[in-house]
């Protein structure tokens, strides 16, 4: 079965897989839980159970790493999260009540539960007009039906439920009216302090001392037992766990959640901390690291000396690494002689080291491509206020590959507070904010206009038609700027150009339905595009390459039935003309689009058979000069719904392109260019010309082949974006998949043709060369000796 599946695949598609030994070498993944709202200490000393809105996880109490994790639908919200320390079970309630054991296995569940609680009797399930108490293993103990509808649980013991009008008391014998109810006080916030209570009679107060520290005071029965400081302030959740340490002393663990971080402290300080901020990424930009060489100015002697010095250094390091390799060879044997690429934080000669500047809803992070978070700054600390709109990050100054001297990457953060625009300029390497500007400007939108060298000039647009351009110290805007604005209430797009620092409206496009999604060309990354496609029957097709186009997708409900159509428009952003327009009948969203070179990829759902389809539209320019394009299109059936699409990008564009589809099951499928080629012959086998081009016969299915998964056996739940960036090597591309989790991989779609194998053993090469040299001399000596003997005979 397996074998035939692979055979099936070879006829349909190309597989891009890595070796198992390479897993983890060029990639890393981070798993997150989200905004943590619930926590409970497990009965096992190393378990900590946490929950966010739709994720529950077990964290190892000693290391802070996730042991197991369960992810529910994104729409679910966990309302109850309770832990039974006697039996080590967790119950969670969304709309479904679920009971888990300590290994994360679901024991039983029940649907349509209004409220649930863990009491001494067992698990109480309250449905609309029905209440049932079960043991933790699911065995029913007693149940009652009521005439009134229950709305919730007021108290666990004695079991008191609230109905629409009153409260009732429930026991094993029956339901009776409750006379007076004392509602339990759970966690309460008392004048800025957070009080937390445990069952064992201890409770702790957290008093903030200053901006960074708080004082923890542990009480038991009104007596102060312990006091210590922790480096956290403004905590929103706190829990305490008493335990006896090895030397029989009473110790306390304090679990605190502040901002996005969950930290565990004890008397001696921080044990571990988890940052969950990267689970909700809003924006991501790749930035290069500055070059480490410096073109030495000065006369020839100085530069010659510098070069000699540098070459001496590299010679020494080469000798050292050879010796290390030999030593490891002797120790471990021939096979295990890997040269691991250790990415230092500085620039890498292959371009494998880059920084990703990431904005979430509360902070900005810089994450290096080797996985470490270089720095993090909260917007609160930058802008000194929390009342901000969405913050946008634009890179204004970026190092390039062939820089002569180091250039520091600079970025700009733009936010709106009331009627003011806040612009903060920062250093990309260390995160310091060098300048904070407040402008009286009703900011509507901001964007960066790409100028040469990957830099951007900041342009701010206000809602009363004003424009501010910030050139920065390095850039000047020489070209004419065109931009368009999406007006949501009227479903229209308005195009402008900037003349003398004022926006002048040029075009307007009005749509009849709300816009579902947009797609733009990636800016200027692939300057090398091979413009013509020659079909092997000698007709030449010219690609329609217009980097100023963008595409718009609408979902238009049809007047007759409850059906809808998907309309796609391809619009030129300078003139506002619609270059191409197409309609997919009886289809609906979610619609994802990718616009790349002359290819437009659209994913949508075809309503009648309820299947997900991918449409590829290739634009070729018509020989008649006008805006009309020649279009070739084809559609395919996807194995599952797609959350987002992206494609790999390389510097020269020679490597084959992989289109990355993020599926709803948390995996990323990579689809080869050849699979979605629009010229695949239908119904007949490819003729020799087509076979020469590599076109396979048309097959409407894009199969889900597990070997084509970019994320191999890892999953990234709830993918929201895929970002790609080229490296200096033509074969390799950086890909970051982010959503609830983050996954990074350096992928080589055509295998790494410009890099030596990882297991190329340099020491074996050195040894064989040295051995050959020695052998040459030995043999020469032996031959001379033998010749001498022969001559003396």
């Amino acid at each position, binding site marked *: *079965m*397996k074998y*035939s*599946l692979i*055979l*099936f695949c070879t*006829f349909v598609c190309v*597989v891009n*897989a*890595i*070796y*198992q*030994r390479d*897993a983890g070498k060029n990639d890393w993944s981070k798993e997150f839980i989200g905004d943590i709202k619930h926590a409970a200490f497990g009965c096992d000393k190393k378990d900590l159970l946490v929950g966010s809105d739709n994720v529950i996880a077990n964290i190892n109490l000693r290391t802070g790493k996730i042991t*197991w*994790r*369960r*992810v*529910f*639908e994104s*729409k679910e919200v966990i309302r109850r999260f309770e832990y039974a320390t006697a039996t080590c079970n967790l119950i969670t309630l969304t709309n*479904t009540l*679920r009971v888990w*054991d300590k*290994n*994360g*296995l*679901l*024991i*039983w*569940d029940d*649907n*349509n539960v209004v409220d649930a609680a863990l009491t001494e009797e067992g698990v109480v399930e309250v449905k609309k007009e029905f209440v049932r108490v079960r043991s933790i293993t699911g065995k029913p103990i007693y149940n009652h039906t009521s005439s009134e509808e229950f709305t919730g649980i007021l108290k666990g013991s004695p079991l008191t439920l609230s109905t629409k009008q009153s409260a009732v008391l429930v026991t094993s014998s029956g339901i009776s009216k409750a006379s007076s109810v004392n509602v339990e006080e759970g966690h309460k916030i008392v004048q800025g302090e957070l009080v937390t209570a445990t069952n064992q009679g201890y409770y702790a107060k957290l008093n903030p001392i200053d901006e960074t520290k708080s004082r923890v005071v542990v009480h038991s029965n009104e007596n102060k037992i312990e006091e210590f400081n922790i480096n956290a302030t403004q905590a929103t959740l706190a829990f305490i766990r008493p335990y006896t340490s090895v030397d029989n002393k009473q110790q306390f663990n304090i679990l605190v959640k502040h901002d996005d971080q969950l930290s565990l402290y004890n008397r001696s300080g921080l044990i571990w901390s988890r940052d969950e901020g990267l689970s909700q990424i809003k924006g991501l930009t790749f930035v290069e690291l500055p070059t480490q060489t410096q073109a030495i100015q000065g006369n020839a002697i100085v530069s010659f000396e510098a070069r000699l010095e540098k070459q001496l250094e590299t010679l020494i390091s080469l000798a050292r690494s050879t010796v290390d390799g030999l030593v490891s060879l002797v120790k471990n044997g021939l096979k295990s002689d890997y040269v691991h690429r250790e990415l230092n934080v500085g620039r890498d000669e292959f371009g494998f080291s880059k920084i990703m500047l990431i904005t979430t809803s509360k902070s900005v992070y810089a994450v290096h491509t080797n996985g470490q978070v270089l720095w993090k700054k909260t917007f609160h600390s930058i802008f000194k206020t929390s009342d901000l709109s969405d913050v946008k990050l634009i890179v204004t100054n970026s190092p390039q590959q062939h820089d002569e001297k180091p250039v520091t990457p600079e970025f700009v953060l733009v936010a709106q507070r009331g009627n003011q625009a806040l612009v903060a300029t920062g250093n990309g390497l260390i995160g310091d904010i060098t300048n904070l500007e407040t402008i009286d400007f009703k900011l509507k939108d901001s964007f960066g206009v790409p100028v040469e060298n990957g830099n951007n000039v900041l342009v701010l647009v206000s809602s009363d038609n004003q424009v501010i351009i910030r050139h920065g110290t390095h850039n000047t805007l020489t070209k004419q700027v065109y931009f368009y604005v999406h007006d949501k209430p009227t479903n229209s797009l308005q195009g402008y150009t900037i003349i003398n620092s004022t926006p002048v409206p040029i075009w307007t496009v009005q749509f009849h339905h709300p816009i579902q999604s947009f797609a733009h060309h990636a800016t200027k990354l692939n300057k090398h595009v091979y413009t013509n496609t020659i079909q092997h029957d000698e007709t030449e097709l010219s690609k329609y390459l217009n980097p100023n186009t963008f595409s718009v997708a609408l979902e238009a409900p049809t007047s007759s039935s409850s059906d809808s159509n998907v309309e796609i428009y391809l619009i030129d952003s300078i003139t506002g003309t619609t270059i191409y327009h197409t309609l997919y009948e009886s289809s609906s969203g979610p619609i994802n689009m990718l616009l790349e070179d002359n290819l437009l990829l659209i994913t949508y759902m075809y309503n009648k058979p*309820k299947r997900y389809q991918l449409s590829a539209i290739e634009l070729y320019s018509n020989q008649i000069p006008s805006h009309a394009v020649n279009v070739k299109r084809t559609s395919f059936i996807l194995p*599952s*719904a797609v959350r987002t699409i992206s494609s790999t990008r390389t510097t020269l564009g020679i490597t084959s392109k992989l289109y990355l589809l993020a599926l*709803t*099951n*948390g995996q990323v499928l990579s689809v080869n260019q050849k699979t979605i080629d629009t010229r695949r012959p239908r119904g007949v086998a490819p003729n020799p010309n087509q076979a020469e081009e590599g076109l396979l016969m048309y*097959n*409407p*299915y894009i*199969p889900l082949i*597990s*070997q084509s*998964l970019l994320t*191999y*056996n890892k*999953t990234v739940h709830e993918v929201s974006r895929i970002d790609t960036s080229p490296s200096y090597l033509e074969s390799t591309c950086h890909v970051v998949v982010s959503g609830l989790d983050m996954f990074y991989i350096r992928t080589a779609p055509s295998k790494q043709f410009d890099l030596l194998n990882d297991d190329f053993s340099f020491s074996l090469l050195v040894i064989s060369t040295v051995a050959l040299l020695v052998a040459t001399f030995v043999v020469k000596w032996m031959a001379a000796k033998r010749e001498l003997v022969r001559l003396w*005979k």
Partner: protein
Amino acid sequence: KLFNILCLCVLICFVAAQDEVIYKDITGRLHISKEELEIGVRVAVNINGDDRVSYVKADGTFTLYELPAGTHYIDFYSVNYLIPQIRIDISPKTGKYRAFAIIPSTNGQDSYGVTQTPISVVPTLNIKPISKNEYFEREEPFDPFSMLKNPMAITLIVGLGIALLAPKLVDPEQMKELQASMSQSESEMKSMMSGFGLDGNKAVENKNQVNPQVKKKQ
């Protein structure tokens, strides 16, 4: 008259029953190892655009609650096993349902790539994984013969073979005669060259000195 009223009541009940939408809870059993369940096997079904997600329980059973009548596709997500997509058809009138396993097929002629195999739902819906998921490329096992296929290796081996075996095939005396004639022709060549005024003079002299010695020894 009573009979008419009775008929009317029956009709009303019938009509009322027709308007009821049937929701069904589907329970099934997935035959999979406990380790895989601990990693987590998710079950998802898409109803009206919303995904409903559940996990397979510790004993291998799973329940999908409140599926409306019609056709639904159930997906299983397991890291190590490939589990077929299950299609459930729930009849709106009787509430009975039937299930098909959708397995990727190898034959291009039938439905381009999937076959639907019916599964019995009595007594329970039993689902078995198709195969193990393979995410990585197969490593070629270390084959010493692959080194032999290298063209460099072939030239080396064949060259070595010729260099070692050739002398054994030839008669030693014939070999010495050949060598002598060769050295003679060499010296002839050299004298010819010196005739053209090249600097082979000294070499020729040396050669003449050596050769008489050799000839003497013979």
